[in-house]
C-alpha cells in the first residue's frame, strides 16, 4: 500500500508517461528516409540558389556595396550623416576580417526573407478572406511564435542533415509568422467607411483587396517585412549550431575555444548588420505610409 502511494500519489505516476517524443522522432526519420531523393533534390537546389545569392554578393566589389548602403540610407532618410555612419560600420566589419562571413549570413537571410514574403503574404491574405482558414491557422501561428527557436533545428537536421538547407528551413519557419500576421492585420484594419465605399461603388472582393485593402495595408505589411528580416537575422545566427556558415559560426567556434575577443567581433558585426537592415527597412515602411485622413 505504501509503495502504491509512493508511486502513484507522491510522484507523478511513471506508468502514465508516454514516449511521444520518441514516436515523433521515428516518424520524422522514417519520412526522411522514404523521401530521400526528393529531399536531396530540394537540398541541392537550395544550396545552388543560396550559392548564387552569395556569389552575386561576393561579386560586388566591397566599395560598391558600402557606397550603395550609404546612398540608400541617404535616399531614405535624407541625412548624410546616417549614410556615412552605416558605411563606416560596414568598413569596420571588413576590417575585422568578417566580410566573407557577413555575406554568407546575408545570403541565407535574403533567401529566407524572400521565401517568407512569397509564402507569408498569400497566407496573410487567405487569413483575411476566409474566417475558416483564420480559425485553423491562428493557433498554428501562435504555436510557431512561442515555440523556442531551437526546436526547429532538430527536425530540419533530420530532414536535410546539416548545412545551409536546414538553416534556411528553420529560419523560414521561425521568421514567417510576423509576415503572415502583419499582412492579415493590415488588411483587416482598413478604415471601415473606406471598405464600405469600395463595396458601395461596386467593387468585387478581389477589387476591394487589390485596389483598397493592400495599398492601405502597405505600411503594416512593410512593418511585417521588417520584423521578418530581424527574426531571420537572429535565427540564422542560431543556425550555426546546425552547421550554417557565417557570422554565427565564428561566434560558436570562438565560444568553444573560450576566446572572448574572437567571439566579440562577429557579435558586433551581427549587431551592425541587424541595425542597418532594420533602419533601412523601417525607412522604406515609413515612406509607404499614406498620410492619415485627418478630417
Amino acid at each position, binding site marked *: 500500500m505504501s509503495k502504491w502511494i509512493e508511486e502513484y500519489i507522491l510522484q507523478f505516476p511513471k506508468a502514465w508517461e508516454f514516449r511521444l517524443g520518441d514516436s515523433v522522432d521515428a516518424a520524422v526519420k522514417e519520412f526522411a528516409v522514404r523521401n530521400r531523393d526528393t529531399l536531396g533534390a530540394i537540398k541541392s537546389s537550395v544550396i545552388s540558389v543560396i550559392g548564387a545569392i552569395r556569389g552575386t554578393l561576393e561579386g560586388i566589389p566591397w566599395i560598391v556595396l558600402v557606397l550603395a548602403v550609404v546612398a540608400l540610407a541617404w535616399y531614405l532618410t535624407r541625412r548624410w550623416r546616417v549614410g556615412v555612419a552605416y558605411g563606416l560600420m560596414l568598413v569596420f566589419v571588413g576590417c575585422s576580417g568578417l566580410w566573407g562571413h557577413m555575406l554568407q549570413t546575408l545570403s541565407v537571410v535574403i533567401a529566407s526573407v524572400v521565401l517568407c514574403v512569397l509564402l507569408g503574404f498569400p497566407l496573410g491574405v487567405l487569413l483575411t478572406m476566409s474566417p475558416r482558414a483564420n480559425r485553423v491557422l491562428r493557433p498554428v501561428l501562435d504555436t510557431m511564435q512561442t515555440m523556442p527557436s531551437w526546436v526547429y533545428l532538430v527536425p530540419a537536421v533530420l530532414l536535410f542533415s546539416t548545412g545551409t538547407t536546414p538553416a534556411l528551413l528553420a529560419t523560414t519557419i521561425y521568421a514567417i509568422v510576423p509576415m503572415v500576421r502583419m499582412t492579415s492585420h493590415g488588411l483587416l484594419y482598413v478604415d471601415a467607411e473606406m471598405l*464600405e465605399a469600395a463595396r*458601395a*461603388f*461596386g467593387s468585387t472582393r478581389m*477589387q476591394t483587396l487589390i485596389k483598397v485593402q493592400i*495599398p492601405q495595408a502597405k505600411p503594416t505589411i512593410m512593418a511585417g517585412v521588417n520584423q521578418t528580416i530581424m527574426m531571420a537575422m537572429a535565427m540564422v545566427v542560431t543556425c550555426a549550431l546546425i552547421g550554417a556558415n557565417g557570422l554565427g559560426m565564428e561566434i560558436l567556434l570562438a565560444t568553444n575555444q573560450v576566446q572572448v575577443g574572437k567571439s566579440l567581433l562577429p557579435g558586433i558585426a551581427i549587431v551592425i548588420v541587424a541595425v542597418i537592415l532594420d533602419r533601412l527597412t523601417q525607412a522604406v515602411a515609413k515612406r509607404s505610409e*499614406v498620410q492619415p*485622413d*485627418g478630417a
Partner: protein
Amino acid sequence: MERDVVLKADKVCKIYGANRAEAERMMAAGHTKEEVQKKTGATVALWDVSFEVNRGEVFAIIGLSGSGKSTIIRCFNQLLRPTSGHVYVEGRAVDSMSKKELLELRRHKVSMVFQNFGLFTHRSVLENVAYGLEVRGLSKTECAERAMEFIDMVGLKGWEQSPIHSLSGGMKQRVGIARALTSDPEVLLMDEPFSALDPLVRSEMQFELLKIQRKLGKTILFITHDMNEAFKLGDRVAIMRDAKIVQIDTPEGMTTNPADDYVRQFIGSADKTQVFTAQQVMIGHVCLVQEKDNPSNALRQMQREGFSSAYVVDNRMRLLGVVTAESAVEARQKSRPLAEYIERDVISVPPDKLAGDIIPLTVGARFPVAVVEEDGTLLGIITKAALLSCVS
C-alpha cells in the same frame, strides 16, 4: 401625373442579435426598443419602416444617433440586409438580387456619399473620383475624362492630382460627391454628408448640393441629424425615432401639423432663434424722447413717427424707460413734467442675447424689449413681430 417611385422601403425590419423571433414578437406587441433589448438582448435597428421616394425628389431622413437612419440607407445598396421586409430600387427588389445584379446596381444605379467621406487616402482626387468607373473596367482615359467633368462641376478643377490629405473637409466631401456622381447614378444615398463639416462650410455645401440637384435632377436620400438641414434640402422629410418612422411630410406640413411632441420638439430645434442675437433682430428705428422734453413735444414726435409710445433717454442716450401716448396726453393736461410719467419696467437685454432666449421675456410685456449696451446706451428695440419673423 402618375408618381414615379424610384426608392421604396416596404415594412423593412433589421434586428441584430440571436433572439430575433422573440424580439419581433415583442416589437409587434408594442414594446419599445429598450424593453426588447433588455429582455432579449437583441437590438432592433429598424422596425416596420415604409416610405417611397419619387424621381428627382430629395427625401431627408432625420433622427438622433441610434434611430436607425444610417441602417435604412444602407439597405438600399445592400451594405446591410434587412431582416424582413423589402427594399426596391425602380421597382426591383434589391434584397433578392444576385451578386452580379447587385454589382450592376451599385455601379450604375445607386451611389453613396459618406459622413467621414470614405475617400481612398492612397489615391489622388482624380483616382478617387474615377474609382466607380475603374471597377467597371473602363479604360484609363475614359475614366479620367468623365471624372474630370465632375471634378469641374464640384469646383475642384486644378486639384485633380492632389493627395486627399492635402484637402480641407469641405473639399474632401466635394470629392465624395464627385465620386458619387461620376457613375451617373439615378440615386444618391447621402449618409450625413455634411455633419463632419463646420457650420459655414456646411451651408455652402448645402447650397452647392441644391445647385447640382437642380442641374442633374437626381433622386436623393439624405440622412441628417440637423433639422435645419433636413428642412432646407428635403422636399419631404421623415423623422425616425427608436427604429421607427414617426412622421413623413413636407417641411411646411410638418411645421404646421407635427404628429406628436417628439416631432414638435425636433422642429423646435430647427428655429433660427438659436442662431440670431438681439442685435441682429432688433429695430434700430425707435421713437426717442429726452427726459427733459415737454409732453407736447413728445406727443408730436410720436405722432410724426407713428408710434404709440416713446423710449425716454437721458442726454447720453442711456435708457430711462417708456412713455405712452396716453400718459403724455395726461401730462400735458395736468402740465406736469414728462419725467413723472416714465414707466421704468421696460425689459432690456444685451445685444448678444439669443433671440430664442428673448421670446419668453416678451410674454405679457407691455412694451417691445429694449436692446441696451452694458453702459445703458439704447441700441434698438425688438418687437414681437420682429421675433416672429425670425422664427418662421
